[in-house]
């Protein structure tokens, strides 16, 4: 986890003279999942697009070591291509047909959709489509995976299954992951670190490190404590009754790297 695959240094960005991101600094190592959480419209998606290289930052720098792929909030599968066709987009650079077929088969096995290669996205359930997007994003030599509220359109049960599936797949194919979500539960269940952003212009309010093993239990004391802390930083009402005192040295460590006071 020591090799930093994604390094963001003092990035600020404006749209039409309005500051959207204010001196964001972030490092993500290979195999690490970092969740970005913040109020709606605070600039999370803008930050993700900067990380993807879709556009460059106004100030500061973004270093990506390796190739970056994105999983979108909307359905990003191309509906006129089959499951195999969509995943193969990520294998475009593989020129040898046999190698490409072998990698495709491996990815289908990874997401457990071996029998679905010839189906079109509209023939799949929401969860299956998400798994195909995940396989496409992990195809080839992907080192950084950016996820923009990937499960927000799914129902509760499918979302829960997809979280489990993501954890399983990332354990087999570790990459640096930045997950934008508005779902605090999702953030503490999936992330190794949760970065809480302020309202626009977004700046980092705090970072929480979560060391609990997967699969995690959202009712466990450490996770409830983390959720309470996030809600507190977002100045949202909360009614968590965390019985046991929070053990910061155990499941949550290095809680609250408070953002420096901005002039």
């Amino acid at each position: 986890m020591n090799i930093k695959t994604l390094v963001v240094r003092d990035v600020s960005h404006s749209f039409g003279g309005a500051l959207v991101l204010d001196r964001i600094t972030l490092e993500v190592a290979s195999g690490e999942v970092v969740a970005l959480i913040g109020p709606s419209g605070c600039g999370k998606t803008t930050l993700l697009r900067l990380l993807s290289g879709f556009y460059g930052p106004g100030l500061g720098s973004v270093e990506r070591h390796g190739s970056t792929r994105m999983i979108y909030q909307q359905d990003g599968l191309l509906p006129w291509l089959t499951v195999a066709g969509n995943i193969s987009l990520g294998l475009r650079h593989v020129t040898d047909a046999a190698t490409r077929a072998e990698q495709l088969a491996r990815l289908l096995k990874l997401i457990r959709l071996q029998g679905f290669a010839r189906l079109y996205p509209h023939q799949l359930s929401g969860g299956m489509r998400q798994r195909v997007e995940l396989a496409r994003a992990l195809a080839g030599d992907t080192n950084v995976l950016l996820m923009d509220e990937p499960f927000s359109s799914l129902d509760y049960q499918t979302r829960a299954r997809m979280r489990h599936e993501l954890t399983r797949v990332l354990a087999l194919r570790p990459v640096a992951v930045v997950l934008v979500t508005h779902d605090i539960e999702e953030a503490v269940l999936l992330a190794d670190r949760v970065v809480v952003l302020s309202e626009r212009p977004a700046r980092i309010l705090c970072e929480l490190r979560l060391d609990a093993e997967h699969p995690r239990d959202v009712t466990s004391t450490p996770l409830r404590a983390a959720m309470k802390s996030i809600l507190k930083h977002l100045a949202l009402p909360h009614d968590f009754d965390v019985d046991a005192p929070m053990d910061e040295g155990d499941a949550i460590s290095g809680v609250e790297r408070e953002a420096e006071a901005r002039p």
Partner: protein
Amino acid sequence: MKSEQPTSYTKAFLLSTACGLAAVGLWSLLSFLELFPRSAFPSPRSVAVGLGEEFRTGRLADDLVASLFRVAAGYTLAVVLSIPLGLALGHRPGVRAALLPAVNFFRSLSPLAWIPFAILWFGIGDLPVVFLIFMATFFPLVLATLAAVANVPAVYFQVAHEYGFRGVELLTRITLPAIMPQVITALRVTGGMAWLVLVAAEMIAGRDGLGFAIWDARNGLRLDLLVCGMVVIGLTGVILDWLLSLLAKLPGVRWGYEH
């Protein structure tokens, strides 16, 4: 609540045949009751006899072939030229700013307004009819293609950018497949328009064809043959629309009709 099952082909065929027979029955009844003079309201029987007569002489087949050729020529030309222009309008704001007002202007003109010019420029025969069909279908197809491009979800272009699609590859592998369902719907609508304009154009600027046959029958007060022409035009229109609807069943475009 019991869910509605998709209608099978057999059931659809039986239903449409029953409706057709009911319409012919109503027609026979109205003809029998002589609500209108017999000379102004031909019976189904006289039309059937007229149809047989037209088939035997070979005139109907000649007219049908002439009309189909004109529709094919004018409509194909419109499709081939309108889709690239619609793509350019959809992708290039400069082209859109320059040409969209003109496209809207010509789209608003009835194609029949061009008939005098069509005759003056191309005389009588195939060319003026082909020209009128082109003018009737070109502009709506340009606008339909433009609208289809504008409706392509931005996420497809983000995916395309991420996976390195540029230039011609972006056009052929992203934009065209993404707009195809909407374009096919527009093809069906404008295909019907082409067939509508054909009749009016042939009546005035043709020397043969189904539209001319209708006009000729009217001049000869043979309303049975006039209705023959109407029946053939209607049936041919249904068949052409069915052929175009087959495009929507292609595997790469079915997604657009699965909502």
